[in-house]
């Protein structure tokens, strides 16, 4: 057991995956000598060589395109896209090629590719460095989309994602890279929670908060604050956006009768909308209030000096909690 930041936990997870399987390759910009702009790949090139930790040309589309070719050759590429806003040049390769590849070849050429993307805001970054693109990928059949909310999950989930035979979009909440927590290096992947399962991270009785990635910590804080006022909130870390673990969520909502979904991404047509539709259908007779969503406004990500007004925070979460409880 060691106390690690999420960045270090991911680094250790990548290291373990590379030790376990010599077909695992890392590809991306500045991931070698520099160790990545967030240092997630720190020292890995030194230890595994530049054929396994590959500094690529500045061409996101080809990072994905070349990874597809490498996967056809039997490698397991882990691609790093430096920032969320830079994934769009690779969008075609991800959605038109990677996502469809397995089905087109009737399963002959699986695509065990992981696309790591630091995402989300809250670090005072310039434009194109704070986005939450998960809905685009969750909308695309053939992809799986996961995002850890804490260092221990990050350590296990990155290894599980690399072991997955399907392409996984692995979204790393960049403002949580420096969050610290205990991480068990001895974690057995087989006995860890399944990659695509949601986890109840706080038990409560009055209302369910469903969230993921950077908002997990915010929701836990909201639950603490609500507890001080005598309200018992259950917090679910979805961890996987595609597939969604609706069963875990429905079980909770059937008990609490109320659901608020929290994410950074714009609310319209987002993950919250999908959850609201499905929970309404599945838990209609258990619901005491409509499913509410807390998220970014339907605007381009704002300049960082006003991002605090865009990003859901403790108060906005609690405001929605109150609205739900008032029904």
């Amino acid at each position, binding site marked *: 057991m060691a106390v690690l930041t999420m960045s270090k936990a991911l680094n250790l997870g990548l290291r373990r995956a590379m030790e376990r399987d010599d077909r695992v*390759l890392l590809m991306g910009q500045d991931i070698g000598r520099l160790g990545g702009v967030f240092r997630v790949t720190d020292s890995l090139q030194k230890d595994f060589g530049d054929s396994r930790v590959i500094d690529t040309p500045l061409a996101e589309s080809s990072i994905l395109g070349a990874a597809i070719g490498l996967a*056809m050759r039997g*490698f397991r590429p882990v691609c790093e896209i430096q920032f969320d806003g830079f994934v769009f040049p690779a969008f*075609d390769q991800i959605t038109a090629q990677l996502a469809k590849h397995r089905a087109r070849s009737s399963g002959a050429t699986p695509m065990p590719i992981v696309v790591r993307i630091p995402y989300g805001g809250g670090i005072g970054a310039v434009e194109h460095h704070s986005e939450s693109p998960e809905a685009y990928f969750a909308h695309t059949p053939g992809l799986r989309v996961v995002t850890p909310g804490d260092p221990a999950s990050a350590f296990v989930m990155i290894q599980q994602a690399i072991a997955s035979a*399907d392409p996984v979009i692995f979204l790393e909440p960049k403002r949580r890279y420096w969050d610290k927590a205990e991480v068990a290096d001895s974690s057995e992947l087989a006995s860890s929670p399944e990659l695509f399962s949601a986890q109840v991270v706080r038990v409560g009785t009055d209302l369910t908060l469903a969230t993921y990635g950077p908002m997990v910590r915010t929701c836990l804080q909201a639950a603490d604050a609500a507890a001080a006022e005598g309200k018992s909130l259950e917090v679910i870390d979805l961890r996987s956006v595609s597939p969604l673990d609706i069963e875990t969520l429905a079980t909770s909502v059937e008990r609490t009768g109320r659901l608020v979904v929290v994410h950074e991404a714009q609310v319209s047509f987002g993950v919250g909308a999908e959850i609201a539709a499905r929970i309404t259908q599945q838990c209609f007779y258990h619901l005491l209030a409509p499913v509410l969503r807390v998220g970014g406004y339907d605007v381009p990500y704002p300049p960082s000096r006003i991002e605090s007004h865009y990003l859901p925070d403790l108060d906005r979460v609690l405001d929605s909690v109150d609205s739900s409880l008032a029904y």
Partner: protein
Amino acid sequence: MAVDGGPELVQLLTPEGERVEHPNYALDPTPDQVRGWYRDLVLVRRFDTEATALQRQGELGLWASLLGQEATQIGSGRALAPGDFVFPTFREHGVGWCRDIDPLQVLGLFRGTTNGGWNPLEHNMALYTIVIGDQVPHAVGYAMGLTFDGASDACVVYFGDGATSQGDVNEGFIWGSVFNAPVVFFCTNNQWAISEPSERQTRIPLYRRAAGFGFPGIRVDGNDIFAVYAVTQAALAAAREGQGPTLIESFTYRMGAHTTSDDPTRYRSGAELEIWKHRDPIERVKSYLARNGHADSRWFAAVEAEGDELAERLRTGCRALEAPAATAMFDNIYATPHPRITEQREQLVDYLASFVTPAGSR
């Protein structure tokens, strides 16, 4: 009108079927080899003609004709070693022929019975790629993998003149170059990207672009199977020897429409077509074989008869390509079960079963 390949065009067999020498490309194929090429050329043209007819009869939704590009495809396809890997566009029916892909497997995509058609690993040929140029980075990645594995094989990626304007193709050139990947960039310059002439894609001959990326570029007479074979073989050898990529611009002409949905009379002249008719890739091999006494009229007739048999097999076989079960759309999307897919498959099954007369039976 780009009709003249210019002085740097590599040619080993003239349109009249006469052998010419080139200082860089010595080639001395056996009569058997040339007869084999001729048979390939004739049969893939017959395949193509038949597929166009099947589209006209409503048996295919679309067909992308290779007419005029037979030498480009067979010449390069026959230069491949068994371990080499091919990344095609959607028009490399002749290359697929060389990779032992049954023409009926190719027709499935155009008939709408599959989005794929064959096992890429069985034939060492990726599936057709319809988004223009997307396959070029795939090929580079595959070639990088060959290097990492210490393999002695190489990889060829096909794309058209239009594709050279795509970002992915240019990215692929950069990657191939800086990683010194064993890849041959094979550009079929058939002069037309649907209605846009190659002048809309480039103001210099395409093969010269290679210099800017740091590897050799060669323009070859794409209607000359001898030259295409020799040039591709040399590029593959260079790749295997660790010299990295080569860009081959195969200078040819799309004699037919872009696809069966296209009408080239709206944008190009009959005069241009006439010029290229005289450069037919098959006639010149026939002249060569006949002139040198390597084949007689009986042999040529036997090849034609073989074409008739193939056409008959394609007609029957194409009509027998059945639509898969409706639930096939849910197959193989994921390696392990995905709840949304499982649930929706069940929904469709139940929905179809809810009809008095099964709806799925249509």
